[in-house]
């Protein structure tokens, strides 16, 4: 049992080390302050207890310099901590470009995961050690939160949009995965594990897939079936933007402004077409809300992403 506790204390991801260094430094600083304050209080309490013979001449009721001192010193330390912490934090938002994408769908009360080649898992996530992994996550119902204590990462998973999280596992093993945002009756049962494998083992595991279709080709079928191709194909008579090379490109919007066509943009364009209308196009696309489920949308995005360099 304690060995599992130790496995949490000893971080298992690349971000974990920098986070732990910050944690230990802050623990040191706050520890010194706490002990200093406690010592002073006890010391004063004993020395100046009523009836003691301590020297009480000229008791200070105000001392400008010392007050300035104990205002400015913490301020300087805090700003230092803030800068350090923010630098580490910004790493959480910068997944390496070669990160492996894995799709997470949370629902009451389970984690459903899908790899790009179509291999699916429930409440268990297999990843290779040493390889950056980016999770593209959404929820089918309420807010959940993907939390792997040993990796020092946590990210809320929201309905209606994608959030993402990345890590590079540094050692093989099995680590707790928790839902950290209260999500209803069986919240505490919404847990699982992240299994970190050696890259070769992982490759073998991933390939041992029982004939699933990969995500992008499933997306292509939906693209045909749901009628997207009717407007978005180059041969179509309807004036709709082409989807080839869209993913990752900067899109100009009709209301002015622009954004990068990422997972969230494509998702919104399918479900809430009025949210961002591409410049030069009329807002005529109907919403596919209720017609496509989360797994369909995920597949469509994978298909569009696969068209990034098709031409």
């Amino acid at each position: 049992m304690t060995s599992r506790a130790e496995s949490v204390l000893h971080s298992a991801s690349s971000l974990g080390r920098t986070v732990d260094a910050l944690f230990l430094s802050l623990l040191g600083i706050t520890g010194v302050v706490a002990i200093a304050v406690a010592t002073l209080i006890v010391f004063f309490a004993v020395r100046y207890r009523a009836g003691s013979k301590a020297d009480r001449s000229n008791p200070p009721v105000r001392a400008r310099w010392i007050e300035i001192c104990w205002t400015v010193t913490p301020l300087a330390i805090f700003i230092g901590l803030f800068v350090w912490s923010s630098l580490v934090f910004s790493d959480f938002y910068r997944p390496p470009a070669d990160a492996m994408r894995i799709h997470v769908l949370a629902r009451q009360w389970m984690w459903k995961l899908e790899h790009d080649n179509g291999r699916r898992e429930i409440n268990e996530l297999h990843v290779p050690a040493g390889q950056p992994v980016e999770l593209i996550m959404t929820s089918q119902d309420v807010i959940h939160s993907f939390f792997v204590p040993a990796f020092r990462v946590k990210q809320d998973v929201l309905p209606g949009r994608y959030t993402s999280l990345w890590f590079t596992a540094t050692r093989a093993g099995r680590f707790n995965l928790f839902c950290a945002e209260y999500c209803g009756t069986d919240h505490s049962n919404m847990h699982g594990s992240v299994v970190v494998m050696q890259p070769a083992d992982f490759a073998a595991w991933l390939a041992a897939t029982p004939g699933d279709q990969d995500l992008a080709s499933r997306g292509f079928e939906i693209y045909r079936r749901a009628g997207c191709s009717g407007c978005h194909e180059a041969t179509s008579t309807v004036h709709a933007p082409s989807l080839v090379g869209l993913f990752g490109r900067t899109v100009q919007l009709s209301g002015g402004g622009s954004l990068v066509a990422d997972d969230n943009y494509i998702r919104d364009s399918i479900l809430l077409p009025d949210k961002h209308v591409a410049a030069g196009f009329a807002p005529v696309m109907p919403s596919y809300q209720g017609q496509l489920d989360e797994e369909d949308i995920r597949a469509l995005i994978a298909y569009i992403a696969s068209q990034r360099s098709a031409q």
Partner: protein
Amino acid sequence: MSAEPSRAFHPSSYLHGGYTLASWLTTRDHKRIALLYMISITGFFFLGGAAASIIRLELLTPNGDLVDAQTYNELFTAHGVIMVWFFLIPSIPATLGNFLIPLMIGAREVAFPRLNLASWYIYTLGGIFVLITLLAGGVDTGWTFYTPFSTLFSRSNVVLAVCGVFIVGFSSILTGLNFIVTVHRLRAPGMTWFKLPLFVWANYATSAILVLATPILAMTLLLIAFERITHIGIFDPALGGDPLLFQHLFWFYSHPAVYIMVLPAMGVASEIIPCFARKPVFGYRTMAYAILGIAMIGFLVWGHHMFVSGQSMYASVVFSLLSFLVAIPSAIKVFNWTATLYKGSISFSSPMLYALGFVGLFTIGGLTGLFLAATALDVHLTDTYFVIAHFHYIMVGGTVMAYLGGLHFWWPKIVGRSYPETWARIAAVTIFVGFNLTFFPQYLLGVLGMPRRYHTYAPEYQLLNEFSSTGAGILAVGYLLPLAYLIWAMLRGKHAEANPWGATGLEWQTPSPPPQENFEEIPTDVPEPYAYRAVES
């Protein structure tokens, strides 16, 4: 002193202006209203405590073997809703504040006595809603009412609970309004702003937060109820709304609410510590400015509850900086209380034990807050038991400790009788020990990654949970002790003098218990605050 009780009391004591229930329920005397509040919040405190006790019993083992998951969720929701809105927020302002602010500033009443009574009735109405919610089967959203769980998924009595909190909000607003006007307009001649006791400053700043933040919560809860009933609203992502909008609005109230709870506690400590150190509070003006600083910056830090929620990274970084900044005035206060002890002549009566306990626990709570202000650490620690431990150190270790300290300090003034000091010291030590044993292990649980609001948990967390539950048992005993001996003191205690502690402050210049009009004559000679002189040796 063994005379008949009524003979020793001031003939027009507020306790003697009519003994009937009706005379209490229609009173406009701020002192009686304070007691009405005290009775109500004590009831809710023990109700919320009962929920906590079952929670801690359940968590003795990793499996859910005492209550089922749904019941567990309803228990922690009840605990949170009751403790936050029906105990902590009204605790010090509505009881000690109501009783003492007019006395401390040399006024005969609060500015709007009828409104004051109305706020107690509104509080009671809100409380009835919450009790009905519990009887109807409870609510399971957590006290935070996060959407879309609360609006579209929960099958419990969300609307009823939300109504209760909505209603009690108006009681907060009216109390805040009353205090602001009272402090501005009813100070005795010569009671300048910088002669005000820090307790008054603290409650004044608290009132400003009550008045400005509570309406946001009220409106937000209304939107929740509306969205739940009609399935239309601004929080539902399926309609283009955003659940994060709810979180922003909720924390825009609920973070300042933390300061609503802790500022008055700081005020209490600032009264007790100088009195038992026989020294003026160190850096009085700095202390007053720090209170205002906390109240103002406190409005700008709500986003630190949302570092992993999906808000933008830049927003998180700004909120992180502001959260570090709000720690500065809190740190100043701790240093100043410590410096107040220097060259004092310190006695360890029970109020002082509570106050020193408050400083220690508040310091730990504040320092661990820095971990949560640091974005990169908060990612790991948020939504774990680390957060639970942190805010219990502030709200229970801080506010409840100070509230009890204040009750002991002013009990002779309030009921005109003194309590058994030995028992009070035993209780103070029991609570301190029990509290630390309950909540310190929870810091460790959080660091090890145990998420909050978990009915069952991984077996590696059991040992620390056992420590915590044992501590909770001790804490429960610690809280029952004052309930017993303070009530006993009210009925049977020895008669107290007007100023048993030799304290400064106008409230001690009038008999214990005070007459209905507070003062026979409004004091005109207002001394400097905390004019204590240490015993020279």
